[in-house]
């Protein structure tokens, strides 16, 4: 990990009509860091990732990635990150190799380098034997591994992981984080992740930011957050920072579609 900031978010807000999803958020992520973004449902985690990945423009404030203004130079910024969204973004009707190949073309990876890199990553994520299988035949854990492998194909400086272990069994989750740690060590990539699982953030992240109701309520290492709140576990620290009220949100169209898709996959 270096002291060079690779992500800089300054006074960023994002409003959808009258609803403010992200409210005056500022933080910095250092290069090579594993940075966890924690918060209850609807806290603003995904909106922040969408702004950092150029999918949404902030209402106010500025975002920088690798020294580039995310809003002003989206094309340059996109070359520098990989992203694994909360919902799988693979094409189930294509093979693992074809999904990787399309990604490589979209990111202008030359043909020869594309082949080498695809093979190396599929081997690294233990997917080489299944490269010619259709993705729709994969389990959730295998799909997630493939998505991470795909996100690394163009050698990004930052990898965004939005709830990458959601819906996975404990073995797959454990394996996923082992891969994430390994790739940070081997590729030096900065990892920006969101997760609901406190134990994972505690185990994997170098630093943690807690967001609630669109506002950043704390930033620091797991030990610092525990110390700040006078608690013994990250989960207790999280509850101390965000309260214990259950957030009851109405389902969005995307939530409904997600539900339908899960039923269909069964």
């Amino acid at each position, binding site marked *: 990990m270096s002291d060079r900031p690779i992500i800089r978010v300054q006074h960023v807000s994002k409003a959808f009509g009258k609803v403010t999803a992200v409210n005056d958020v500022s933080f910095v992520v250092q290069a090579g860091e594993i940075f966890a973004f924690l918060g209850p449902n609807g806290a603003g985690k995904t909106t922040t990732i*969408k702004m950092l*990945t*150029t*999918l*949404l423009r902030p209402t106010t404030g500025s975002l920088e990635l690798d020294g580039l203004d995310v809003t002003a130079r989206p*094309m*340059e910024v*996109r*070359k520098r*990150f990989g*992203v694994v*969204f909360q*919902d*799988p*973004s*693979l*094409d189930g*009707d*294509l093979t693992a190799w*074809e999904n990787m*190949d*399309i*990604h490589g*073309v*979209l*990111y*202008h990876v030359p043909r020869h380098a594309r082949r080498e890199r695809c093979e190396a990553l599929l081997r690294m994520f233990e997917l080489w034997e299944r490269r010619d299988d*259709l993705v729709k035949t994969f389990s959730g854990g295998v799909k997630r591994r493939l998505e991470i492998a795909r996100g690394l194909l163009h050698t990004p400086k930052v990898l965004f992981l939005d709830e990458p272990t959601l819906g996975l069994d404990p073995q797959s989750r454990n394996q996923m984080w082992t891969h994430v740690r390994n790739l940070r060590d081997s590729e030096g990539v900065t990892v920006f992740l969101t997760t609901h699982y406190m134990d994972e953030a505690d185990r994997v992240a170098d630093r943690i930011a807690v967001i609630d109701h669109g506002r950043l309520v704390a930033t620091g290492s797991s030990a610092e957050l525990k110390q700040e709140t006078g608690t013994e576990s990250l989960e207790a620290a999280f509850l101390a920072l965000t309260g214990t009220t259950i957030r009851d949100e109405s389902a969005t*169209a*995307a939530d409904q*579609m*997600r539900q339908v*898709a899960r039923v269909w996959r069964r």
Partner: protein
Amino acid sequence: MTVVYILWLREVRKYLRSRVQIIASLGGPLMYLGVLGFGLGPVFQRAGEGSYIQFMAPGVIGMTVLFTAMFSGIAMLWDRQFGFLKETLVAPVPRLAIMVGRTLGGATVAVLQGTLIFVVTLIAGFRPQSLLAVPLAFLVIALIAVIFSALATAIGSTLKEMQGFQMVMNFLVMPTFFLSGAIYPLEGLPRVLGALTRVDPLTYGVDGVRGLLIGRTHFGIALDVAVLLAVGVLFVVFGAWRFSRIEA
């Protein structure tokens, strides 16, 4: 160009692998050919209009292309809801290239499906007046496919929920088909219906294909092609504009 190619290839690969989709999409056209073609054939003949299969086959091909192209909009909504679209939207490529790749892919699938139905019509007894005209007819079919694939992209970029597409089917796709003269001649229509057929781009597509395949045209092939080209440019620009405004 590589981006356009890879996204085009994705659509074609998915189609060729989806045997269920291919077989299921034959149902509608076969029903029209079988039930209407043979059922109304004698009435059509007695009215002095000749063979109904000959008349209707270009219309059924046009219908197939229309439906298949419009369904590429549903595929886009699906991609939008389940993530693949996001994968393309965060890539460092112009949205125009993504839109063109998708639209050409959808259009190619529609032409392939139209070709399949063309073969079915041949089996059902349809005979083009000249084999040389068949490739020209397929150029017109390709124009129809691009027009409606671009329209589907525009609609898929605008709608946020699958349910909205049912409305599109009922209030846009079905009227487009029924007003196109695919299943009845355009001559002697009531004034309002006649006017409506003239604002339907598929009318010119079906008329052009019919003119080339059986030598019977209402507007003339030159006008048909001119209208299709103009509408094609308009819809591609419209589709590109809508696609450029998608927020994930």
